[in-house]
Protein backbone atom coordinates (compact mmCIF):
# COMPACT_ATOMS: atom_id res chain seq x y z
CA UNK A 1 0.00 0.00 0.00
CA UNK A 2 1.17 3.43 -0.90
CA UNK A 3 1.49 5.51 2.25
CA UNK A 4 2.66 8.73 0.72
CA UNK A 5 -0.29 11.09 0.87
CA UNK A 6 1.52 14.21 -0.24
CA UNK A 7 4.96 14.93 -1.49
CA UNK A 8 6.88 17.95 -2.69
CA UNK A 9 9.64 17.56 -5.25
CA UNK A 10 12.14 20.40 -5.60
CA UNK A 11 9.50 22.88 -4.54
CA UNK A 12 10.63 26.50 -4.67
CA UNK A 13 8.41 29.50 -4.00
CA UNK A 14 9.15 33.04 -5.13
CA UNK A 15 7.48 36.24 -4.00
CA UNK A 16 8.39 38.52 -6.87
CA UNK A 17 12.17 38.31 -7.06
CA UNK A 18 12.54 36.99 -3.52
CA UNK A 19 12.95 33.25 -3.22
CA UNK A 20 11.11 32.29 -0.03
CA UNK A 21 11.58 28.53 -0.30
CA UNK A 22 14.33 26.55 -1.99
CA UNK A 23 14.18 22.92 -3.11
CA UNK A 24 11.85 21.45 -0.56
CA UNK A 25 11.54 17.67 -0.75
CA UNK A 26 9.08 16.57 1.87
CA UNK A 27 6.98 13.42 2.07
CA UNK A 28 3.84 13.32 4.16
CA UNK A 29 2.58 9.92 5.31
CA UNK A 30 -1.08 8.94 5.28
CA UNK A 31 -2.89 9.01 8.65
CA UNK A 32 0.10 10.54 10.37
CA UNK A 33 0.76 13.96 11.84
CA UNK A 34 3.70 15.75 10.27
CA UNK A 35 5.03 18.80 12.09
CA UNK A 36 6.96 21.60 10.44
CA UNK A 37 9.15 23.54 12.88
CA UNK A 38 11.76 26.23 12.57
CA UNK A 39 12.45 29.85 13.51
CA UNK A 40 10.19 32.73 12.42
CA UNK A 41 10.44 33.73 8.78
CA UNK A 42 11.87 30.45 7.57
CA UNK A 43 8.95 29.75 5.23
CA UNK A 44 6.94 27.24 7.27
CA UNK A 45 3.62 28.88 6.48
CA UNK A 46 4.57 29.39 2.85
CA UNK A 47 5.30 25.68 2.59
CA UNK A 48 2.03 24.80 4.31
CA UNK A 49 0.07 27.09 2.02
CA UNK A 50 1.63 25.39 -1.00
CA UNK A 51 -0.16 22.16 -0.17
CA UNK A 52 -3.60 23.60 -0.98
CA UNK A 53 -2.44 26.25 -3.44
CA UNK A 54 -3.30 29.10 -1.05
CA UNK A 55 -0.17 30.86 -2.27
CA UNK A 56 -2.11 31.48 -5.47
CA UNK A 57 -3.91 34.23 -3.56
CA UNK A 58 -0.71 36.25 -3.25
CA UNK A 59 -0.46 37.92 -6.66
CA UNK A 60 3.35 37.96 -6.77
CA UNK A 61 3.80 34.34 -5.66
CA UNK A 62 5.21 31.73 -8.04
CA UNK A 63 5.60 28.04 -7.23
CA UNK A 64 8.10 25.86 -9.09
CA UNK A 65 8.49 22.12 -8.69
CA UNK A 66 5.99 19.38 -8.03
CA UNK A 67 3.42 18.97 -5.30
CA UNK A 68 1.96 15.51 -5.39
CA UNK A 69 -1.37 14.56 -3.89
CA UNK A 70 -1.85 10.79 -4.11
CA UNK A 71 0.91 10.78 -6.69
CA UNK A 72 -0.74 13.40 -8.89
CA UNK A 73 0.92 16.77 -9.42
CA UNK A 74 -1.39 19.55 -8.26
CA UNK A 75 1.06 22.33 -9.09
CA UNK A 76 0.24 22.48 -12.79
CA UNK A 77 -2.16 24.77 -14.58
CA UNK A 78 -5.47 23.15 -15.35
CA UNK A 79 -5.76 21.53 -11.95
CA UNK A 80 -9.06 22.39 -10.31
CA UNK A 81 -7.97 24.47 -7.31
CA UNK A 82 -11.45 24.20 -5.80
CA UNK A 83 -11.16 20.41 -5.84
CA UNK A 84 -7.67 20.56 -4.32
CA UNK A 85 -8.96 22.76 -1.50
CA UNK A 86 -11.82 20.40 -0.80
CA UNK A 87 -9.39 17.51 -0.49
CA UNK A 88 -6.82 19.55 1.43
CA UNK A 89 -8.51 21.60 4.15
CA UNK A 90 -6.98 24.29 6.29
CA UNK A 91 -7.16 25.67 9.84
CA UNK A 92 -5.66 29.07 10.47
CA UNK A 93 -3.61 30.64 13.24
CA UNK A 94 -6.40 32.86 14.52
CA UNK A 95 -9.88 31.42 14.81
CA UNK A 96 -11.82 32.86 11.86
CA UNK A 97 -15.44 31.75 12.16
CA UNK A 98 -17.74 33.43 9.64
CA UNK A 99 -20.22 35.93 11.07
CA UNK A 100 -22.95 33.29 10.82
CA UNK A 101 -24.56 30.80 13.13
CA UNK A 102 -22.60 27.78 14.38
CA UNK A 103 -24.76 25.57 12.16
CA UNK A 104 -24.18 27.71 9.07
CA UNK A 105 -20.44 27.88 9.70
CA UNK A 106 -20.23 24.09 9.50
CA UNK A 107 -22.58 23.74 6.53
CA UNK A 108 -20.84 26.47 4.52
CA UNK A 109 -18.50 23.98 2.86
CA UNK A 110 -21.03 21.20 2.18
CA UNK A 111 -23.44 23.77 0.68
CA UNK A 112 -20.70 24.88 -1.71
CA UNK A 113 -20.65 21.35 -3.04
CA UNK A 114 -24.37 21.28 -3.60
CA UNK A 115 -25.66 19.55 -0.46
CA UNK A 116 -29.00 21.23 0.30
CA UNK A 117 -31.07 18.59 2.05
CA UNK A 118 -31.69 19.67 5.64
CA UNK A 119 -31.41 16.17 7.10
CA UNK A 120 -28.08 15.55 5.37
CA UNK A 121 -26.77 18.92 6.54
CA UNK A 122 -27.88 18.36 10.13
CA UNK A 123 -26.12 15.01 10.09
CA UNK A 124 -22.91 16.60 8.81
CA UNK A 125 -23.10 19.29 11.50
CA UNK A 126 -23.42 16.75 14.27
CA UNK A 127 -20.70 14.50 12.93
CA UNK A 128 -18.22 17.31 12.32
CA UNK A 129 -18.81 19.00 15.67
CA UNK A 130 -18.41 15.66 17.44
CA UNK A 131 -15.14 15.04 15.63
CA UNK A 132 -13.98 18.50 16.67
CA UNK A 133 -14.98 17.75 20.30
CA UNK A 134 -17.36 20.68 20.35
CA UNK A 135 -20.76 19.02 20.01
CA UNK A 136 -21.59 18.72 23.71
CA UNK A 137 -20.82 22.38 24.31
CA UNK A 138 -22.88 23.79 21.47
CA UNK A 139 -25.59 21.28 20.60
CA UNK A 140 -28.26 23.43 22.30
CA UNK A 141 -27.25 26.66 20.60
CA UNK A 142 -26.48 25.73 17.03
CA UNK A 143 -28.31 28.81 15.79
CA UNK A 144 -26.30 31.27 17.82
CA UNK A 145 -23.53 33.16 16.12
CA UNK A 146 -20.16 31.44 15.85
CA UNK A 147 -18.64 34.65 17.21
CA UNK A 148 -20.42 34.13 20.54
CA UNK A 149 -18.08 31.24 21.40
CA UNK A 150 -14.81 31.52 23.31
CA UNK A 151 -11.53 31.58 21.39
CA UNK A 152 -10.82 27.89 21.93
CA UNK A 153 -14.35 26.93 20.95
CA UNK A 154 -14.11 29.16 17.87
CA UNK A 155 -10.97 27.34 16.78
CA UNK A 156 -12.65 23.97 17.22
CA UNK A 157 -15.60 25.32 15.23
CA UNK A 158 -13.16 26.20 12.45
CA UNK A 159 -11.79 22.66 12.62
CA UNK A 160 -15.34 21.29 12.40
CA UNK A 161 -15.94 23.58 9.42
CA UNK A 162 -12.85 22.16 7.72
CA UNK A 163 -13.84 18.56 8.55
CA UNK A 164 -17.37 19.04 7.21
CA UNK A 165 -16.21 18.68 3.60
CA UNK A 166 -14.38 15.46 4.51
CA UNK A 167 -10.93 16.50 3.36
CA UNK A 168 -8.16 13.94 3.05
CA UNK A 169 -5.46 16.24 4.40
CA UNK A 170 -5.79 18.99 7.02
CA UNK A 171 -3.25 21.79 7.12
CA UNK A 172 -2.93 23.54 10.48
CA UNK A 173 -1.06 26.82 10.67
CA UNK A 174 -0.13 27.27 14.33
CA UNK A 175 -3.69 26.35 15.30
CA UNK A 176 -3.18 26.83 19.03
CA UNK A 177 -0.83 29.79 19.19
CA UNK A 178 -3.67 32.21 20.03
CA UNK A 179 -5.22 29.90 22.63
CA UNK A 180 -4.76 29.20 26.33
CA UNK A 181 -3.15 25.92 27.52
CA UNK A 182 -6.45 24.15 28.19
CA UNK A 183 -7.83 24.94 24.74
CA UNK A 184 -4.47 23.96 23.27
CA UNK A 185 -4.69 20.59 24.98
CA UNK A 186 -8.20 20.03 23.62
CA UNK A 187 -7.01 20.77 20.09
CA UNK A 188 -4.09 18.39 20.47
CA UNK A 189 -6.36 15.66 21.81
CA UNK A 190 -8.75 16.03 18.94
CA UNK A 191 -5.87 15.87 16.47
CA UNK A 192 -4.96 12.51 18.00
CA UNK A 193 -8.56 11.35 17.70
CA UNK A 194 -9.11 12.31 14.07
CA UNK A 195 -5.76 11.41 12.56
CA UNK A 196 -6.88 7.83 11.94
CA UNK A 197 -9.20 9.19 9.24
CA UNK A 198 -7.08 12.07 8.01
CA UNK A 199 -3.58 13.18 7.28
CA UNK A 200 -2.44 16.22 9.24
CA UNK A 201 0.33 18.69 8.58
CA UNK A 202 0.90 21.20 11.37
CA UNK A 203 3.13 24.25 11.54
CA UNK A 204 4.07 25.14 15.08
CA UNK A 205 6.41 27.39 17.03
CA UNK A 206 5.87 25.34 20.10
CA UNK A 207 8.54 22.65 20.32
CA UNK A 208 6.75 20.68 23.03
CA UNK A 209 3.64 20.65 20.89
CA UNK A 210 5.53 19.24 17.95
CA UNK A 211 7.07 16.60 20.21
CA UNK A 212 3.72 15.74 21.80
CA UNK A 213 1.50 15.45 18.76
CA UNK A 214 3.51 14.61 15.68
CA UNK A 215 4.82 11.40 14.18
CA UNK A 216 7.26 13.07 11.84
CA UNK A 217 9.00 16.41 12.04
CA UNK A 218 10.51 18.60 9.34
CA UNK A 219 13.05 21.15 10.52
CA UNK A 220 13.39 24.29 8.45
CA UNK A 221 15.90 27.12 8.51
CA UNK A 222 16.89 30.02 6.28
CA UNK A 223 20.07 29.79 4.26
CA UNK A 224 22.58 32.55 3.52
CA UNK A 225 20.21 34.05 0.90
CA UNK A 226 17.40 34.29 3.50
CA UNK A 227 15.55 31.56 1.65
CA UNK A 228 13.82 28.75 3.56
CA UNK A 229 15.25 25.24 3.31
CA UNK A 230 14.36 21.98 4.96
CA UNK A 231 17.49 20.94 6.81
CA UNK A 232 16.28 17.75 8.41
CA UNK A 233 13.32 15.41 8.29
CA UNK A 234 12.80 12.35 10.43
CA UNK A 235 10.67 10.57 13.02
CA UNK A 236 9.75 13.10 15.68
CA UNK A 237 11.55 10.96 18.28
CA UNK A 238 14.77 11.11 16.35
CA UNK A 239 14.54 14.85 15.72
CA UNK A 240 14.08 15.58 19.39
CA UNK A 241 16.45 13.02 20.88
CA UNK A 242 19.08 12.33 18.29
CA UNK A 243 19.10 14.96 15.53
CA UNK A 244 21.72 14.58 12.85
CA UNK A 245 22.11 18.27 12.08
CA UNK A 246 23.83 20.47 14.64
CA UNK A 247 21.42 23.34 13.88
CA UNK A 248 18.41 21.15 14.60
CA UNK A 249 19.93 20.10 17.89
CA UNK A 250 20.57 23.72 18.87
CA UNK A 251 17.04 24.70 17.92
CA UNK A 252 15.13 21.90 19.63
CA UNK A 253 17.18 22.21 22.79
CA UNK A 254 16.47 25.95 22.86
CA UNK A 255 20.04 27.10 22.38
CA UNK A 256 19.10 29.48 19.60
CA UNK A 257 16.35 30.38 17.19
Amino acid at each position, binding site marked *: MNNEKMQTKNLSVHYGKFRALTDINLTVQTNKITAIIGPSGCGKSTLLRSF*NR*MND*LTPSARMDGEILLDGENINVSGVD*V*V*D*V*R*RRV*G*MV*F*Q*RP*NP*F*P*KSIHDNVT*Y*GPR*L*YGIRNKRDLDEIVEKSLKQAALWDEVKD*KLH*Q*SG*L*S*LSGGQQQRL*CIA*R*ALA*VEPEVILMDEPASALDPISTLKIEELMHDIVKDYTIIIVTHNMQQAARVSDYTAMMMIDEHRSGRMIEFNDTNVIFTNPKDKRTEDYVTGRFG
Partner: protein
Amino acid sequence: MTVTRFQELIAKNQVAHSRRRRITNAVMLSVTGLLTLLALIPLFWIIGYVIYRGGPTLNWDFFTQLPRPLGVKGGGILHSIEGTIIITFLACLFAIPPGVLAAFYAARNPNTTLGIALRFSTDVLAGIPSIVMGLFVYDLMVVPMKHFSALAGGVALAILMLPTIIRTTEEMLKLVPHTLREGSLALGAPEWKTSLSVLFPAALNGIVTGFLLAIARAAGETAPLLFTALGNDTFNVGLIVKGGVQAHQNIFTILGRIVNQPVDSLPLTLWKYAQQPYPERISQSWGVALILMIFVLLTEVVTRLWIENRKRSMQG
Protein backbone atom coordinates in the same frame (compact mmCIF):
# COMPACT_ATOMS: atom_id res chain seq x y z
CA MET B 1 22.90 53.38 46.01
CA THR B 2 24.58 55.75 43.63
CA VAL B 3 22.63 58.54 42.05
CA THR B 4 23.21 58.98 38.34
CA ARG B 5 23.51 62.34 36.66
CA PHE B 6 20.15 61.76 35.00
CA GLN B 7 18.39 61.12 38.29
CA GLU B 8 19.98 64.27 39.73
CA LEU B 9 18.66 66.37 36.86
CA ILE B 10 15.20 64.92 37.19
CA ALA B 11 15.12 65.55 40.94
CA LYS B 12 16.09 69.18 40.39
CA ASN B 13 13.41 69.86 37.83
CA GLN B 14 10.68 67.68 39.23
CA VAL B 15 8.62 70.20 41.17
CA ALA B 16 8.62 72.89 38.49
CA HIS B 17 8.05 70.30 35.84
CA SER B 18 5.06 68.59 37.33
CA ARG B 19 3.41 71.95 38.12
CA ARG B 20 3.83 73.17 34.59
CA ARG B 21 2.51 69.90 33.25
CA ARG B 22 -0.60 70.07 35.39
CA ILE B 23 -1.29 73.68 34.42
CA THR B 24 -0.83 72.94 30.72
CA ASN B 25 -3.12 69.99 31.08
CA ALA B 26 -5.84 72.04 32.77
CA VAL B 27 -5.61 74.85 30.23
CA MET B 28 -5.75 72.54 27.22
CA LEU B 29 -8.61 70.57 28.70
CA SER B 30 -10.70 73.70 29.27
CA VAL B 31 -9.91 75.10 25.82
CA THR B 32 -10.89 71.90 24.02
CA GLY B 33 -13.96 71.46 26.22
CA LEU B 34 -15.08 75.03 25.60
CA LEU B 35 -14.64 74.70 21.85
CA THR B 36 -16.58 71.44 21.89
CA LEU B 37 -19.46 73.26 23.58
CA LEU B 38 -19.15 76.04 21.02
CA ALA B 39 -19.38 73.51 18.20
CA LEU B 40 -22.52 72.02 19.72
CA ILE B 41 -24.30 75.38 19.92
CA PRO B 42 -25.24 75.70 16.22
CA LEU B 43 -26.50 72.12 16.19
CA PHE B 44 -28.88 72.53 19.11
CA TRP B 45 -29.75 76.06 18.07
CA ILE B 46 -30.89 74.91 14.64
CA ILE B 47 -32.84 71.95 15.98
CA GLY B 48 -34.42 74.07 18.71
CA TYR B 49 -35.29 76.93 16.40
CA VAL B 50 -36.85 74.69 13.75
CA ILE B 51 -38.98 73.03 16.42
CA TYR B 52 -39.93 76.44 17.79
CA ARG B 53 -40.97 77.87 14.40
CA GLY B 54 -42.26 74.70 12.78
CA GLY B 55 -43.86 72.99 15.76
CA PRO B 56 -47.07 75.09 15.88
CA THR B 57 -47.78 74.34 12.21
CA LEU B 58 -47.77 70.59 12.71
CA ASN B 59 -51.08 68.83 13.09
CA TRP B 60 -52.71 65.77 11.61
CA ASP B 61 -54.03 67.69 8.58
CA PHE B 62 -50.55 68.94 7.74
CA PHE B 63 -49.49 65.35 7.07
CA THR B 64 -52.67 64.14 5.36
CA GLN B 65 -54.01 67.08 3.33
CA LEU B 66 -53.00 68.74 0.12
CA PRO B 67 -52.27 72.48 -0.02
CA ARG B 68 -55.29 74.78 0.08
CA PRO B 69 -55.45 78.11 -1.70
CA LEU B 70 -54.04 81.08 0.14
CA GLY B 71 -56.46 82.54 2.62
CA VAL B 72 -58.10 79.17 3.22
CA LYS B 73 -57.16 77.84 6.59
CA GLY B 74 -55.52 74.43 6.98
CA GLY B 75 -54.16 72.23 4.25
CA GLY B 76 -51.04 70.14 4.30
CA ILE B 77 -48.11 68.83 2.40
CA LEU B 78 -49.04 65.21 1.77
CA HIS B 79 -47.84 65.58 -1.82
CA SER B 80 -44.32 66.55 -0.69
CA ILE B 81 -44.06 63.64 1.72
CA GLU B 82 -45.23 61.30 -1.03
CA GLY B 83 -42.77 62.80 -3.51
CA THR B 84 -39.82 62.65 -1.16
CA ILE B 85 -40.51 58.98 -0.46
CA ILE B 86 -40.87 58.18 -4.18
CA ILE B 87 -37.73 60.07 -5.23
CA THR B 88 -35.60 58.75 -2.37
CA PHE B 89 -36.73 55.21 -3.08
CA LEU B 90 -35.93 55.57 -6.77
CA ALA B 91 -32.53 57.08 -5.96
CA CYS B 92 -31.69 54.14 -3.68
CA LEU B 93 -32.83 51.74 -6.36
CA PHE B 94 -30.51 53.34 -8.94
CA ALA B 95 -27.53 54.05 -6.69
CA ILE B 96 -27.20 51.15 -4.24
CA PRO B 97 -26.82 48.09 -6.50
CA PRO B 98 -24.23 49.56 -8.89
CA GLY B 99 -22.50 51.41 -6.04
CA VAL B 100 -22.09 48.27 -3.95
CA LEU B 101 -20.89 46.19 -6.89
CA ALA B 102 -18.37 48.85 -7.91
CA ALA B 103 -17.14 48.97 -4.32
CA PHE B 104 -16.62 45.21 -4.34
CA TYR B 105 -14.52 45.55 -7.44
CA ALA B 106 -12.47 48.43 -6.05
CA ALA B 107 -11.92 46.70 -2.70
CA ARG B 108 -10.65 43.55 -4.39
CA ASN B 109 -8.63 45.22 -7.15
CA PRO B 110 -7.45 48.52 -5.64
CA ASN B 111 -4.32 48.83 -7.76
CA THR B 112 -5.71 48.03 -11.18
CA THR B 113 -6.34 50.80 -13.69
CA LEU B 114 -10.07 50.47 -13.25
CA GLY B 115 -9.80 50.49 -9.45
CA ILE B 116 -7.69 53.65 -9.42
CA ALA B 117 -9.98 55.29 -11.98
CA LEU B 118 -13.00 54.48 -9.83
CA ARG B 119 -11.47 55.94 -6.68
CA PHE B 120 -10.39 59.08 -8.51
CA SER B 121 -13.74 59.62 -10.21
CA THR B 122 -15.77 59.07 -7.04
CA ASP B 123 -13.69 61.78 -5.38
CA VAL B 124 -14.34 64.12 -8.29
CA LEU B 125 -18.02 63.22 -8.38
CA ALA B 126 -18.33 63.91 -4.65
CA GLY B 127 -17.01 67.41 -5.25
CA ILE B 128 -19.39 68.41 -8.05
CA PRO B 129 -22.06 70.87 -6.90
CA SER B 130 -25.45 69.22 -6.71
CA ILE B 131 -27.08 71.79 -8.97
CA VAL B 132 -24.80 70.64 -11.78
CA MET B 133 -26.25 67.14 -11.41
CA GLY B 134 -29.69 68.64 -11.86
CA LEU B 135 -28.66 70.45 -15.01
CA PHE B 136 -26.96 67.32 -16.34
CA VAL B 137 -29.99 65.10 -15.78
CA TYR B 138 -32.20 67.83 -17.30
CA ASP B 139 -30.30 67.48 -20.54
CA LEU B 140 -29.97 63.73 -20.22
CA MET B 141 -33.57 62.84 -19.40
CA VAL B 142 -35.99 65.71 -19.12
CA VAL B 143 -35.31 67.13 -22.59
CA PRO B 144 -35.56 63.79 -24.47
CA MET B 145 -38.64 62.75 -22.45
CA LYS B 146 -40.11 66.21 -23.02
CA HIS B 147 -41.42 66.44 -19.44
CA PHE B 148 -40.26 66.58 -15.83
CA SER B 149 -40.57 63.38 -13.81
CA ALA B 150 -39.93 61.62 -10.52
CA LEU B 151 -37.71 59.29 -12.52
CA ALA B 152 -35.39 62.13 -13.53
CA GLY B 153 -35.33 63.37 -9.94
CA GLY B 154 -34.41 59.90 -8.73
CA VAL B 155 -31.57 59.66 -11.23
CA ALA B 156 -30.19 63.06 -10.21
CA LEU B 157 -30.20 62.09 -6.52
CA ALA B 158 -28.75 58.67 -7.34
CA ILE B 159 -25.72 60.26 -8.98
CA LEU B 160 -25.37 62.38 -5.88
CA MET B 161 -25.49 59.33 -3.61
CA LEU B 162 -23.09 57.18 -5.63
CA PRO B 163 -19.75 58.50 -4.31
CA THR B 164 -20.77 58.15 -0.66
CA ILE B 165 -22.07 54.64 -1.20
CA ILE B 166 -19.04 53.47 -3.17
CA ARG B 167 -16.47 54.89 -0.79
CA THR B 168 -18.06 53.77 2.47
CA THR B 169 -18.81 50.30 1.11
CA GLU B 170 -15.25 49.96 -0.15
CA GLU B 171 -13.77 51.09 3.17
CA MET B 172 -16.01 48.73 5.15
CA LEU B 173 -15.11 45.78 2.91
CA LYS B 174 -11.44 46.54 3.40
CA LEU B 175 -11.92 46.42 7.18
CA VAL B 176 -13.07 42.79 7.10
CA PRO B 177 -10.12 40.68 8.31
CA HIS B 178 -8.44 38.94 5.39
CA THR B 179 -8.41 35.71 7.39
CA LEU B 180 -12.18 35.47 6.88
CA ARG B 181 -11.69 35.62 3.15
CA GLU B 182 -8.94 33.02 3.28
CA GLY B 183 -11.07 30.78 5.46
CA SER B 184 -13.76 30.73 2.82
CA LEU B 185 -11.38 30.29 -0.10
CA ALA B 186 -9.60 27.46 1.73
CA LEU B 187 -12.90 25.58 1.78
CA GLY B 188 -12.91 25.81 -1.99
CA ALA B 189 -15.38 28.69 -2.27
CA PRO B 190 -15.05 30.79 -5.42
CA GLU B 191 -14.24 34.47 -5.06
CA TRP B 192 -17.76 35.74 -5.82
CA LYS B 193 -19.32 33.36 -3.31
CA THR B 194 -16.82 34.49 -0.67
CA SER B 195 -17.66 38.13 -1.33
CA LEU B 196 -21.38 37.55 -1.26
CA SER B 197 -21.81 35.23 1.70
CA VAL B 198 -18.84 36.06 3.94
CA LEU B 199 -17.43 39.53 3.25
CA PHE B 200 -20.73 41.29 2.59
CA PRO B 201 -22.51 40.09 5.76
CA ALA B 202 -19.39 40.86 7.81
CA ALA B 203 -19.29 44.43 6.52
CA LEU B 204 -23.03 45.01 6.28
CA ASN B 205 -23.44 47.17 9.41
CA GLY B 206 -20.93 49.69 8.17
CA ILE B 207 -22.24 49.54 4.63
CA VAL B 208 -25.78 50.30 5.77
CA THR B 209 -24.49 53.25 7.79
CA GLY B 210 -23.02 54.52 4.53
CA PHE B 211 -26.40 54.14 2.80
CA LEU B 212 -27.88 56.17 5.62
CA LEU B 213 -25.48 59.06 5.15
CA ALA B 214 -26.18 59.04 1.44
CA ILE B 215 -29.95 58.92 1.90
CA ALA B 216 -29.93 61.68 4.50
CA ARG B 217 -27.97 63.90 2.16
CA ALA B 218 -30.07 63.10 -0.90
CA ALA B 219 -33.42 63.51 0.86
CA GLY B 220 -32.49 67.05 1.82
CA GLU B 221 -31.35 68.17 -1.63
CA THR B 222 -33.28 70.87 -3.46
CA ALA B 223 -31.07 71.98 -6.29
CA PRO B 224 -30.94 68.79 -8.41
CA LEU B 225 -34.73 68.48 -8.19
CA LEU B 226 -35.47 71.96 -9.53
CA PHE B 227 -34.85 70.88 -13.12
CA THR B 228 -35.87 67.26 -12.78
CA ALA B 229 -38.75 66.44 -10.45
CA LEU B 230 -39.97 70.05 -10.72
CA GLY B 231 -42.63 69.77 -8.02
CA ASN B 232 -46.42 69.90 -8.13
CA ASP B 233 -49.43 70.29 -5.92
CA THR B 234 -51.10 66.95 -6.45
CA PHE B 235 -51.18 63.56 -4.80
CA ASN B 236 -49.91 61.33 -7.61
CA VAL B 237 -50.82 57.94 -6.17
CA GLY B 238 -54.21 59.29 -5.13
CA LEU B 239 -54.90 60.62 -8.63
CA ILE B 240 -54.16 57.26 -10.18
CA VAL B 241 -56.33 55.43 -7.68
CA LYS B 242 -59.12 57.96 -8.27
CA GLY B 243 -58.67 57.79 -12.04
CA GLY B 244 -59.28 54.07 -11.84
CA VAL B 245 -57.02 51.15 -12.48
CA GLN B 246 -58.03 48.95 -15.36
CA ALA B 247 -57.86 45.21 -14.99
CA HIS B 248 -55.42 44.74 -17.84
CA GLN B 249 -52.89 47.15 -16.36
CA ASN B 250 -50.16 45.29 -14.59
CA ILE B 251 -48.29 46.64 -11.59
CA PHE B 252 -45.42 47.91 -13.73
CA THR B 253 -47.68 50.06 -15.88
CA ILE B 254 -49.12 51.63 -12.74
CA LEU B 255 -45.70 52.20 -11.15
CA GLY B 256 -44.55 53.59 -14.48
CA ARG B 257 -47.37 56.12 -14.45
CA ILE B 258 -46.40 57.24 -10.96
CA VAL B 259 -42.72 57.76 -11.66
CA ASN B 260 -43.34 59.28 -15.08
CA GLN B 261 -44.85 62.52 -13.81
CA PRO B 262 -43.46 65.43 -11.87
CA VAL B 263 -43.58 65.00 -8.12
CA ASP B 264 -42.99 67.33 -5.24
CA SER B 265 -40.50 66.90 -2.44
CA LEU B 266 -40.08 68.36 1.04
CA PRO B 267 -37.06 70.57 0.25
CA LEU B 268 -38.75 71.84 -2.92
CA THR B 269 -41.87 72.85 -1.01
CA LEU B 270 -39.77 74.44 1.70
CA TRP B 271 -37.96 76.47 -0.90
CA LYS B 272 -41.16 77.51 -2.72
CA TYR B 273 -43.07 78.45 0.43
CA ALA B 274 -40.22 80.34 2.03
CA GLN B 275 -39.99 82.65 -0.99
CA GLN B 276 -43.60 83.74 -0.77
CA PRO B 277 -44.61 86.94 0.99
CA TYR B 278 -47.47 85.37 2.94
CA PRO B 279 -46.93 84.69 6.65
CA GLU B 280 -48.96 81.45 6.58
CA ARG B 281 -46.79 80.03 3.77
CA ILE B 282 -43.64 81.07 5.67
CA SER B 283 -44.77 79.29 8.81
CA GLN B 284 -45.75 76.26 6.74
CA SER B 285 -42.24 76.17 5.30
CA TRP B 286 -40.92 75.93 8.86
CA GLY B 287 -43.27 73.03 9.37
CA VAL B 288 -41.86 71.37 6.27
CA ALA B 289 -38.33 71.90 7.61
CA LEU B 290 -39.31 70.17 10.82
CA ILE B 291 -40.84 67.22 8.96
CA LEU B 292 -37.72 66.91 6.84
CA MET B 293 -35.61 66.75 9.99
CA ILE B 294 -37.91 64.18 11.54
CA PHE B 295 -37.83 62.14 8.32
CA VAL B 296 -34.03 61.98 8.35
CA LEU B 297 -33.97 61.33 12.08
CA LEU B 298 -36.50 58.50 11.79
CA THR B 299 -34.51 56.82 9.02
CA GLU B 300 -31.46 57.14 11.21
CA VAL B 301 -33.11 55.73 14.33
CA VAL B 302 -34.74 52.79 12.55
CA THR B 303 -31.49 51.82 10.86
CA ARG B 304 -29.47 52.18 14.06
CA LEU B 305 -31.92 49.94 15.87
CA TRP B 306 -31.63 47.38 13.10
CA ILE B 307 -27.83 47.53 13.25
CA GLU B 308 -27.75 47.21 17.06
CA ASN B 309 -30.11 44.27 16.88
CA ARG B 310 -27.96 42.63 14.23
CA LYS B 311 -24.80 43.23 16.25
CA ARG B 312 -26.37 41.60 19.27
CA SER B 313 -27.40 38.51 17.36
CA MET B 314 -23.90 38.34 15.87
CA GLN B 315 -22.20 38.37 19.25
CA GLY B 316 -24.71 35.90 20.65
